[in-house]
């Protein structure tokens, strides 16, 4: 609660600052929203820091996020973020099947047969979709 309230406050400050930089005509409506957002974010922070920390179900304080844990949110985020990273660097035709291959084999511990079929299907879906859309498949930063 504390972390998320501080994040919201930071976003509210950024929006209020940007609103203040606008021309008077353009900032009329955003200001009417940014000021209440700032007030609400401050209230949230005050409430988050004034209430006692909730213990976990076992009565112990909540543990910090551990990226090495098999089901860690950070690990999940990293896995998911690797797809746009792979597509950006290697292009869709190479990056997407590579992501599927690695996800199935490393994260899912699937058999090689399932992994290879999954990656081949990903490559086929990409090729067919872009053929249907009559669009060029984006090439990656490394391969362009």
């Amino acid at each position, binding site marked *: *609660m504390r*972390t*998320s309230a501080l*994040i*919201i406050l930071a*976003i509210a400050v*950024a*929006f209020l600052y*940007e*609103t203040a930089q*606008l*021309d008077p*005509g*353009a900032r*009329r*409506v*955003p200001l*009417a*929203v*940014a000021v*209440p*957002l700032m007030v*609400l*974010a401050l*209230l*949230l922070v005050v*409430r988050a820091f004034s209430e006692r920390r909730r213990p976990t179900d076992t009565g112990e304080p909540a543990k910090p996020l551990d990226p090495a844990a*098999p*089901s*860690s*949110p950070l690990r*999940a*985020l990293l*896995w*998911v*973020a690797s*797809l*746009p990273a792979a*597509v*950006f660097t290697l292009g*869709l035709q190479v990056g*997407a099947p590579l*992501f*599927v291959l690695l*996800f*199935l084999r490393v*994260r*899912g*511990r*699937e058999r090689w047969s*399932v992994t290879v079929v*999954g990656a081949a299907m*990903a490559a086929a*879906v*990409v090729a067919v*979709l*872009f053929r249907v*859309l009559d*669009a060029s498949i*984006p090439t990656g930063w490394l391969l362009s």
Partner: protein
Amino acid sequence: MVASKTESTPPWRACAGKAVPVDVVLSPVDVLHAAVAGLQLVFSWPNILYPIIGTLVAMCVAVLPGVSGATLLALAIPLTFSWEPLPIMLLFGALVGGATFMGSVSAILLNIPGTAPNAATLLDGHPMALRGQARTALACSATASALGSTLGVVALVASVPLVSRALPLVGPPEMLVLSTWGLLSVAVVIRGSMLKGLTMVCLGLMVSFVGLDTTTAVVRFTFGSLLLEEGLSLVPVFVGLFAIAEIIDLVASGRETVAGDAGQTEMGGSVRQGISAVLRNPKLLLRSSLIGTVVGLVPGLGGTVAGFVAYGDAARTVDDDSEFGSGDIRGVLAPEAANDAKDGGSLLPALAFGIPASTGTALLLAALQVHGIRPGSELLTTQLELAFVLIWSLFLSNWLTSLVGLSAVRPLARLTLVPTARLAPAVLLLATLGALSFRGRMSDVFIAFAFGAIGFGMKRFEWPRIAFVIAFILGPLFELNLKLSLNLHALGRLNLWTHPSVVIGTLALGVVLLLSRRKSCPARPS
């Protein structure tokens, strides 16, 4: 008022093979004609394939706990970008309607609601399944869903002539009150903290302001990024918030399969008993459907509230409530009827004013906007057939889901055993392709994944996504009508006494806020 006719034949009318002119001010007969024309369009070949395929796909997705119908809708928007309006209406009506009943299958069999609105069903549905009456509970759920949705659609159709007559009277001040009502009601009625709800509404509005302001030609809130100058498109934002965020959550949960450790129960009981239980309780069915329809009208409440309100009403009003919570079939009937009836209710503000009342209608409006279909006066007058195509498609899919779902419960329930490791890359790949195929820009993929992470954070920290989404959709409408109203006022052309609906709407808004505030305050000692 002078009636005007449509000049050209829109594509969906051409599909029917004939042009049916519709008056701008509609009589009940016009509405009936449009309803029949819409029905003919839905049941003509090959149009009928769209709702059937849409329903079957929605059924397969909605039965998976954690991967909601909203995920499917978000993925479908960019993938159908090049389609004509008619197939869009047919498909999206089916996707909205098809997802509703199937969530009850996993609720009854696995004690996991497929979608949040089915949470009330498991209170009595799963105990029935454990007692060997799974088939009875599912038959009751399917029948109540089909009949509840029918009553919701009847209420929607009956209100179309009234609403279409009122629409020409709605100007910028009225739209401002309506959009403010949508924004504030979603903030105050959603489950959890009102403070969080209001914060999410403000945040959603601010994010909707990102990009070029069309009235002043000033670029706002881009934080120096060229990517944001055109503003944030609905497609990557919704793909991120609903498809990618759900998959991050699923991967982070560490579940081997979508259903987790829940074991399946044996299929026992009788379909006839389930159907007759609904027919033996017509009052409960009507009351629950009415609750669902009314709750559906209010932005932010949605099926979860409809289900629990109807469940609570049933528990309070039935003669013998001793079995409630431990396998009373009326505890399945009431939430399922309400949950499906709310679809009809939530379509009315969406089609008439462009105000989404639920996540499903928010995504539906996004799809309509992407395809250039504007809700409001035009859709409910000159394009009324198209609106009816959506309504009939929703209606058909509600019935189809109940019929097919009942006969194919066992194989559909087996879908919940799909490994997470196989589902996640497939959905992520579809999300990437959806974001990329929308405008062919890599930046949309980055925006989608960024909003995926934001949506995951919102889910983890219990920040209401629905409040953010409704504010994001209503943002441009709110800003435009606020500016127009202020300009009209500055020019001396806005007299509140000539707009009684504004005064009444503002007073109603105040009453709603006061009542919700009183509800959230602790009771004072007497």
